[in-house]
């Protein structure tokens, strides 16, 4: 067991930091960091293009798709540095973390050729068409239909809380091709398909982030289906396990906690109550860090990751919560325009317990699969 970084890992982190220093705009820290804003979406293509040119967008992908087969630590160090900096990749982090790898595993040659190169070049934005008004935590009950007509599927229904839909080129869509859990299929659906309407939902988490997406007889060729018909649920479970520990949220949370503490120290306000809460939050960040590192280590050694991913996610939710609560209580001016980074972090922190499986769903998985408690009757 070894808790130190090796020379190569240290050098790689330094390279990423140098890249960030050279490529982030000078006023980056004072800009709104919502990953779905118009500005961020445009900037992400410029920034990810430069990352790709430097070999820093998808180093963990296979050589065939523009990577260098780097190990899971490399991609996680990269993700830590990006998230800690305020995620200049915007919504494109999803391509790198799970959409690209899922297409590599389940996509046909034609789908891979069409969709993977633009991701590897940092020039495309995706959205995930998962949640529906009646299907959130109970995702498998989704109702959006895909009805086959010859060599075409007609999509009808509605998705909601869809991130980045306003700027997305393609949707990773879950739709029903027959009843039940084995009736869910995945479609790679171009967002300019006639019959798709996107409406932004104003939200506390930032401009341009979440949307409603309506499908009104949107027609896609059968070749847009990812994997086999009815196998969507299995595919999406794999994808979600990548997503759950894909974002090193603890990295930005830790940085923002230190930033908040520095503000208090500068004004002589780092007193007893704040010290105790800050210590608690800092320990929670470190716990989330090592839960996540454990997943990376397991991937590195080719082990199957189970309920540990849910434990890592829950630890992360608690870290985000404690840091954002600390900021609200001790540096409230941050939410009133005094510090754009702290404000953006606070907006994103709420998302941790909701997105990619609510915290309570993670607790169910931990209870059954990690503690071995008997399952609830259904």
């Amino acid at each position, binding site marked *: 067991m070894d808790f130190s970084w090796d020379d190569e890992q240290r050098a790689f982190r330094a390279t990423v930091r140098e890249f960030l220093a050279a490529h982030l705009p000078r006023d980056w820290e004072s800009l709104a960091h919502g990953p779905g804003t118009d500005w961020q979406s445009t900037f992400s293509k410029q920034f990810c293009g430069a990352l790709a040119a430097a070999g820093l967008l998808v180093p963990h992908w296979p050589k065939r798709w523009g990577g260098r087969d780097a190990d899971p630590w490399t991609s996680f160090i990269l993700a830590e540095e990006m998230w800690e900096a305020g995620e200049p990749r915007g919504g494109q982090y999803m391509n790198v973390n799970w959409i690209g790898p899922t297409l590599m595993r389940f996509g046909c040659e034609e789908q891979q050729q069409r969709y993977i190169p633009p991701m590897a070049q940092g020039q495309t934005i995706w959205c995930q068409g998962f949640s529906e008004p009646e299907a959130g935590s109970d995702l498998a009950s989704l109702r959006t239909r895909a009805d086959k007509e010859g060599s075409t599927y007609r999509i009808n229904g509605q998705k909601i809380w869809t991130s980045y839909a306003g700027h997305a080129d393609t949707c990773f869509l879950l739709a029903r091709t027959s009843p039940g859990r084995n009736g869910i299929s995945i479609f790679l659906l171009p967002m300019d398909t006639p019959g798709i309407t996107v409406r932004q939902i104003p939200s506390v988490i930032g401009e341009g982030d979440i949307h409603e997406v309506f499908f009104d007889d949107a027609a896609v060729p059968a070749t847009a289906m990812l994997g086999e018909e009815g196998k969507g649920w299995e595919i999406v479970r794999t994808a979600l396990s990548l997503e759950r520990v894909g974002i090193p949220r603890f990295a930005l949370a830790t940085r923002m906690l230190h930033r908040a503490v520095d503000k208090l120290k500068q004004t002589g306000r780092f007193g007893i109550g704040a010290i105790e809460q800050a210590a608690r939050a800092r*320990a929670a960040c470190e716990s989330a860090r*090592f839960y996540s590192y454990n997943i990376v280590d397991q991937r590195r050694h080719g082990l199957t990751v189970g309920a540990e991913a849910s434990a890592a996610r829950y630890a992360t939710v608690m870290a985000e919560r404690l840091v954002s609560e600390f900021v609200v209580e001790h540096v409230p001016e941050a939410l009133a325009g005094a510090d754009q980074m702290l404000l953006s972090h606070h907006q994103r922190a709420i998302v941790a317990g909701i997105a990619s499986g609510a915290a309570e769903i993670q*607790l169910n998985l931990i209870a059954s699969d990690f503690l071995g408690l008997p399952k609830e009757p259904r």
Partner: protein
Amino acid sequence: MDFRLTSDQESLVEAVDKLALQFQHKPTEFHGFALVGDELESELRQGEYFDIAQVPEFGPLTAAMAVERLARLPFTAEIALSMLVRPQLPVDLPRPLAVVENGRPGRFVGTAKTLLVIEGERISIARPSADDVESVESLFGYPMGRLKRTIDLERLSDADAYATRKWLRVALAAEMSGLLKAAIDSTVEHLTLRKQFGRPLGTFQALRHRMAECAVLAGGVRWLMLKAAGTADDGDAALAASHAQESATRVAYEVHQMLGAMGMTLEHPLHLWTYRLKALLSELGGRGGQASAVAKLIF
């Protein structure tokens, strides 16, 4: 970063597991508070387990794994300080060790050959005779004792006191990590077997979620503790002790709620772990003490 055990660590963990097997059940006739494992102590001594931190292939990290594993037993012995703190002291001192913190009763003080006496920032060494100490009745799952009278103290240098405090924090976190796991495991067993309203308690979401939260806390304590033992960093040690005391406060409450009246009995072993956790909650300044250390060392 590489979290696989080395082959040396693996063999040591296996040996400790094997040794622990014979002590893993509370004797049914025992209905007391502190279940002292004299045989456990003697086996550890004979197997030279108290010296593993000094063996280069093992080091403090492996010793911390052993402390954590042995703390899961219903039996207790003075293990953590001997394995993790004694090797770091400036002179070779006899075990068992105990801490006397600001004059209060402490674990194993009645039988310790070496005392670490903490008075504020100062740490001193004392070598008590049998007449200097006495045992104290307590609810805590450890044999508690106190100093009866003033005793000769040899003050550690500031640097040695600083290092000692760090390893005391690692030892605290390692012991608490094992206790948390044992308390949770025991509770999971109860929730799996005990039926109410026609089904196992463990199928009720209100309880499942709370247990899952406890498990996440306990797992976090284990990671922070292992990291602190591995890096020997002062800040890491403070974080580990902080997270341990913070989590234990919550977990001790939750597991007793889950056990209901069964957890109030001395027949069920739960109290052996939870009342040890309670003893450790106040050590080294408690949560406030760890928070001050985190503030000083990390912020």
